């Protein structure tokens, strides 16, 4: 049992999606996250163990290496792809309630801003940590965020801005959320955003990188 979980975790950590995947080159022809997850389920390993001990643990290592600049966006994307291939096999267990997500996380790039690379990386890391992510995309008006919170009242929220000119829109969105939903935690991120700005606008956490957002949510 341990062997297959170790192998599965390795596939996610190093981005081996399935047997046909050419990457990483030194694993050519070997089973990937897709096949190994299937095999683990067939061996009777519980979905919860597969999810936590292999997949989430691997994505945690990926996030840590990204923070330490040992890997970069392409490697992180491949890990997320391998993770998704594995999670696809766990869908029936999510549907049956045998395993559950840690919670819901609403993420958006604020109104006026079209940049989404950073947002997407945070999304991947948080999904990889076992959360259900509702991605509202880019250029998202405050009203849309509020509507989504109304439909998902326990959700945490993540807001991204790359431009100094859209930081004001981030402030508007944060203040609107806090006036209606004061207990919903808000994480902010993006190139010009910092700890001081977080305090100024009343957000709960400033995440300089994806893994710090995961750590905050899992605290």
């Amino acid at each position, binding site marked *: 049992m341990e062997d297959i979980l170790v192998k599965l975790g390795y596939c996610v950590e190093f981005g081996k999606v399935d047997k046909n995947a050419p*990457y990483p080159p030194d694993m050519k022809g070997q089973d990937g996250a897709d096949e190994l997850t299937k095999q683990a389920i067939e061996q009777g390993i519980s979905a919860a163990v597969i999810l936590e001990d292999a997949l989430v643990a691997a994505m945690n290592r990926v996030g840590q290496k990204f923070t330490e600049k040992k890997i970069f966006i*392409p*490697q992180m994307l*491949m890990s997320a*792809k391998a993770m998704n291939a594995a999670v696809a096999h766990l869908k029936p267990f999510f549907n049956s309630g045998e395993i559950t997500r840690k919670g819901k996380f609403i993420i958006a790039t604020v109104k006026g801003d079209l940049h989404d*690379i950073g947002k*997407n990386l945070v999304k991947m890391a948080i999904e990889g940590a076992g959360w259900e992510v509702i991605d509202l995309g880019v250029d998202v008006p405050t009203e849309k965020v509020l509507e989504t919170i109304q439909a998902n009242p326990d959700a945490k929220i993540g807001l991204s801005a790359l431009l*100094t000119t859209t930081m004001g829109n981030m402030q508007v969105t944060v203040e609107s959320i806090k006036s209606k939903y004061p207990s919903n935690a808000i994480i902010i991120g993006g190139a010009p955003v910092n700890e001081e700005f977080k305090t100024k606008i009343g957000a709960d956490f400033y995440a*300089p990188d994806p893994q710090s957002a995961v750590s905050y949510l899992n605290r």
Partner: protein
Amino acid sequence: MNHKDRFYATINHQVVDRPASWLGLPVPSAEPALLKHFGVNSIENLKLAIDDDIHPIEVPYNFPPSNHIACAFNFAKQTHLDTPDERTLTAPGFFEDYNEVTDIDKFDWPDPTKHLDREESNRRAKATSKNHIRMGIMWSAHFQDACAAFGMEHALMVMLTNPDMFQVVIDRITNFYLKANEIFYESTKGQLDAVLIGNDFGSQTGLMVDPDMIRTMVFPGTKKLIDQAKSYGLSVMHHSCGSIFPIINDLHEIGADIIHPIQALADEMDAPNLKKNFANKIAFCGGVDAQYLLVNGKPNQIINKVHELKELFPTGLIISPSHEAILPDIAPANIEALFKAIKD
């Protein structure tokens, strides 16, 4: 010193009367406040009013709706306005559906000879002050365009899973720019002093892509673009937003004369760190933080920052905002303070 002597002395680490300067490229929405503040009727006159050293010349590229060479490729699968402000690198791109290098010709590659206006290039160069550094704004962002060709996230994975495919696409894009730039350089021969080329490689905290992948797959094209500009006797300013500390040496080695824009708040990109590691080796342009200081600071804080930069880099640094696009949230008084302090 005149503007040209100052520019060349600055980038050659020689003694200057004051460091060279560059305003950057104010976005259209920032222009009215700047013109009003300085009491001028054009950005060209504003540059004369602040005694700027570098005057940019945009490449005239007739390809509606953007008419911008940075939007020469229609890679995006979804319809959008395709102006620089509307362009998203992450939108799914044409090559997302192709895996074979032989598929390269399935895309309708643009021919720059049909769109790049030779006469207008010459007219623009002639209309730009000979006494200043005339800098062609080439961009030639072959890496960013290759990302758009697939959709950025897909492209970054293709770099790992199918490097030959990524390479054939980025090489074709590079060839487009080499041809376009040749037309521009020939049309403006003898009237240009420098060019700006570049790609964004950095985020606020580090490189987006493994430096070895950049060296292997991207820099060969960058070197061709730099070599071409040098063959016309032009100085090369290389732009990349973000934290690019690990590849500054590489850019120097492949011929870049100036690294732009020193995104001051990005990791390892603060002026003291760059001074410590690259003093007298390569020149920089930028340094006055446009993410916080120019947006939120007061004129006296800008003045202090410029004085600090001048002390660190008595030469070797073209003082400029740390982002070429001057956005409307920067107070014109801060721009005035920046240029006043350069001359103190």
